[in-house]
């Protein structure tokens, strides 16, 4: 037992020193390569796509395929968790982990809930202008539901509604990709007018995809938490 600990620590130390030695060849705070893809992204995003937030432009437009995969990973995580914790047809629908809140907590949560949902919606609608986007907005919405689930012991979320929202949002994402293919010949290609920089209605398909992603992530994460809470011991 002691031996294993010492062995692991010494191995880790060797690994860490080697990694550090290699990384210290990089100068922190400087670009290390001559010509990278980032210059193109930084120039094309504001000029051609009219998207102020370059990270959003990369996530949704240049590397939109990654985002489709990422949404799928979350979808699969929810499915996997449901499949792993599933115990049979007749044992659904009862909460096992209960957080019972006092009156202050419940009233406060009820007050905060719409505000949180609104904030989430704001974040994913303005994903191409300000920091944030579909994932962040979706997570914020999920935390809103989490707050309600914690405050009220009998708060329920309909599994059917969640799964419908999730499916529809996913289908929207994939369909937009296929529409781009019909229009311009490549999957997820931008086919809407770009508008002008820092306008709400700009960036082509980015706002639409981010709204779909926001709904999807929100529904998925709410479902994920709900599955975990309903796990029976």
């Amino acid at each position, binding site marked *: 037992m002691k031996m294993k600990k010492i062995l692991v620590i010494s191995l880790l130390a060797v690994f860490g020193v080697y990694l550090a030695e290699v990384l210290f*060849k990089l100068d922190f705070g400087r670009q290390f390569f001559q010509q990278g893809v980032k210059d193109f992204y930084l120039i094309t995003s504001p000029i051609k796509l009219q998207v102020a937030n370059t990270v959003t432009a990369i996530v949704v437009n240049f590397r939109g395929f990654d985002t489709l995969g990422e949404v799928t990973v979350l979808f699969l995580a929810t499915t996997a968790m449901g499949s792993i914790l599933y115990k049979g047809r007749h044992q659904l629908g009862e909460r096992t982990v209960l957080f019972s809140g006092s009156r202050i907590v419940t009233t406060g949560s009820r007050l905060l809930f719409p505000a949180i949902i609104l904030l989430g919606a704001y974040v994913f609608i303005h994903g191409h202008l300000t920091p944030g986007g579909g994932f962040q907005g979706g997570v914020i919405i999920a935390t809103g539901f989490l707050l309600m689930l914690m405050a009220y012991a009998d708060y329920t979320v309909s599994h059917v509604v969640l799964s419908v929202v999730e499916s529809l949002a996913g289908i929207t994402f994939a369909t937009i990709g296929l529409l781009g293919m019909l229009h311009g010949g490549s999957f997820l290609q931008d086919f809407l007018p770009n508008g002008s920089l820092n306008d709400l209605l700009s960036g082509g398909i980015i706002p639409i995809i981010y709204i779909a992603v926001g709904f999807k992530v929100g529904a998925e994460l709410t479902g994920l938490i709900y599955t975990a809470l309903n796990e029976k011991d």
Partner: protein
Amino acid sequence: MVGSPVLFIAVPLLAAFLIPLLGMVWKESIRILPGLVLLYMLVLAITLLEQVMHTGTIVEILAGWKPPWGINLVFSPFTGILATLMILMGFIIWIYSYRFKNVDFEEAKKYFILFMMLVTGSVGIVLTGDIFNQFVFIEITSISAYALTAFYKHRDSAEASFKYLMVGSLSSMFLLLAIILIYSQLGTLNMADIASKAHLMKPEFKILAVIFFIVGLGIEAEIFPLNGWVPDAYAQAPGPVGAAFAGIVVKAGVYALIRIIFTLFDVSGTHQFLIVIGLTTMIISEMAAIRQDRLKRMLAYSSLGQMGLVLVAFGIGTEEGIFAAMFLLINHAIGKSLLFLSGSYLVYNSADKYISETNGMGKFLPVTSFLFALGALAVVGMPPFSGFWGKFFMMSAAAHANMLLIIALILSVSLIELVYYFRVINRIYFYKKESHITPKKPTVNAVIAMATLGVIILIIGFYPDLISGYLHQASQALLDKGKYIQDVLSTGQLLTH
């Protein structure tokens, strides 16, 4: 235009999102839709493969940006054959498991979604031309694989799955480290772009990145020190999932490893490394396989040994060697899947899946037993079956490369394989059935699926020339690094509107 490679990813994703909706209205659709999607993918793959063999590599641009900036999919003869093989295996395993979990709708729905995404993720790993996108697909495949491993609710499956998850997520983080090391040096994520700029990397970064890549991808490719999870996962997963691991997921892992070593970096010594690691994997796994007393664990260890053989064949590095490796890969996918599918019926009703519990099944399950024997003979490499050609080409490649030690090792390992497979076949046909076991008749669709695999084995065994033309082109495509780079980087103008 018949269709483009992106449909291999987009259509199954669309279907996966659609299944929960359709399932509410029409329950049978959750079983039918994945099959239709896989059938569509299969037709598309075969058409595209035919086209690629004549006109050359298809490079698909995504989101309208030319390769260094956007993500691209590469359907070359090499990746095309692997993708077609995976989709074919996926379709056959779908036929086999059509009635899976017939009583429990919720479970069946999850099984089919996860299974379809397992196939899609593997196809994505093979087709993509971008290292970070490959990482995303590896995660899609792994998460489906973790969930499918833990699918049965008996006690050990969760443990096997957790083991798999631990190793898998640690190594995927190493993959992320490798990706960022490359990005910090070259400022690009596109494989072809990296390959063309690889000489600009500082050598220590290159070596560290290659090490991290081997650690990160070795888990899916099941190379020696990283394959401790394999026997448990294969044995604890449902039968069709074990077959899918052997027939689909490993292939994707091997592909990723080969792509890194052959195309991305030319660090000296990686080919020798492949040979050494392949031989180690092969010998240790076959030694372990002969000592197993449980059928599925034995098959899993045997699968590891075969993959070691494939790595050795890739490591020889000549065109002949790669050709042999491709042949072995196809043979392994078909033969080992057949073994897993039929083997899971042979030990269907026994709790511990001991080999001794297959005693005398030849009388009760004649078709299944016959197909199991066929698969075993093909995997061992007996002359009239497909495996023979793989090993034959492999040995002649090794002989031309003056690697006689490899030939000796392959022959001795084949002998070991012969011993343990014949032990099982002997038990099936010449022993008396144990009284407490009641054999389970395979369903019609399972018989169809297994028989298809058996027929493929026979066809390839008697007419190896049917596929060897494709495989020659594929191995040339893998070796011709310059053409890969040129194909990808010269695709398309900057599409704008």
